């Protein structure tokens, strides 16, 4: 999740411009039919990622995650509608994943947060605090690795008691610990005067 050390021009671009560009490219990817268009967009996105100097390791990790899923989808598509749609959806999904990593790799979370807070500004009239909207989003992102750690600890605890196969021995303590962690985090935020 941390930013690559070799910050580039892409990092300095305004967040809004990046989000809009990626939004436009994503919609184009989904809207345009046909293999040639799909190939063009995948190549274009890969080129963008290279020009923006997104670390190769990060690209590979993303691709590995999505390709597995995309291949399953493509196989089903092949079976249902034929090879053309299958190749197109495989490429489209890859493109969308690359676009996603392009944004996260070139945008520090702090910048993203500032942008969301700015965009949520008009909500002030509805009695919603934009600062809080930004904080909620960033904490949602941050809670993912912490939750994975909790899941792993719970699984190990269940396993060491010989309860690996029992959903109740896994889920009950996991849910309780996640909620307890949320309470603790809430107390810690309150103690830091955040949200007062």
């Amino acid at each position, binding site marked *: *999740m*941390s*930013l690559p*050390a070799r910050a580039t021009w892409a990092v300095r671009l305004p967040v809004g411009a990046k989000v809009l560009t990626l939004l436009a490219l994503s919609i184009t990817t989904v809207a345009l039919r046909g293999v040639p268009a799909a190939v063009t967009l995948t190549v274009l996105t890969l080129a963008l990622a290279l020009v923006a100097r997104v670390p190769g390791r990060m690209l590979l990790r993303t691709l590995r995650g999505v390709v597995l899923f995309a291949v399953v989808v493509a196989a089903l598509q092949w079976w249902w509608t034929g090879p053309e749609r299958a190749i197109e959806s495989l490429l489209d999904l890859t493109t969308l994943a690359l676009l996603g990593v392009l944004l996260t790799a070139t945008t*520090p*979370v*702090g910048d993203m947060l*500032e942008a969301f807070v700015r965009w949520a500004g008009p909500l002030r009239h509805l009695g919603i605090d934009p*600062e809080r909207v930004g*904080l909620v989003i*960033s*904490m949602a*992102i*941050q809670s993912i*690795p*912490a939750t994975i*750690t909790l899941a792993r600890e719970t699984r190990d605890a269940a396993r060491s008691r010989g309860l690996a196969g029992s959903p109740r021995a896994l889920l009950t303590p996991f849910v309780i610990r996640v909620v307890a*962690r949320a309470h*603790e*985090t809430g*107390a*810690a*935020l*309150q*103690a*830091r*005067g*955040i949200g*007062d």
Partner: protein
Amino acid sequence: MAEAAPERRAEVVLDATEVRSPDGRTILHPITLTLTEHRIGIIGPNGSGKSTLARLVNGLVEPSSGRVLVDGVDVARRGAAVRRRVGFCFTDPAAQVVMPTCVEDVELSLRKRIKDRVRRREAALQILERFGLGDRAEVSVHVLSGGQRQLLALAGVLATDPDLVIADEPTTLLDLRNTRLVADTLFSLDQQLILLTHDLELARRCERVLLVEDGRIAFDGPAEAAVAQYEATV
């Protein structure tokens, strides 16, 4: 440890403060005391009410009856104002470090005080430097060691510029080296310190130590006597 010259402190007053659980059990029996010392220790067994006592001071727990005042300000009425002056450091830093990188987490605490982003980052980096985390600024908080993570949590608390820091068993999860590091950092602060601990060596470094047992203050006085009494009851 040499104490820094300009000591910051607040006067904490508990006035017949009592805490009962929703089902009517008494967690803290009525307590009346005034805390003004620069280094205050709180010791006692698990479940004795230490944490509840500490959480009263910054309004994380509200008294069922009685009052808590910090420099004359009622915590129940003006909790936000009190929390600006009272920092709180928890046992498990995982719960209080909420941002992806170290510098971003400290910046979160600075958000209210420093609006300008560039100046905020500079201030955050300075604070990290002070806590020996200068070279970890852009590092993910997940790769920090336990000690570094606790120092980061402390940096996040100190960034809000409190006059009083309450630390709830800040070294319980740490090894010996990190315990010393975190403890030395805590005892070198200008801020007034209320330290909850099971580490009696740390308690001995305090000017005044409260021994809490079964929701009551069983002893209140010099560290050595408090520790002696606690050890005698075990």
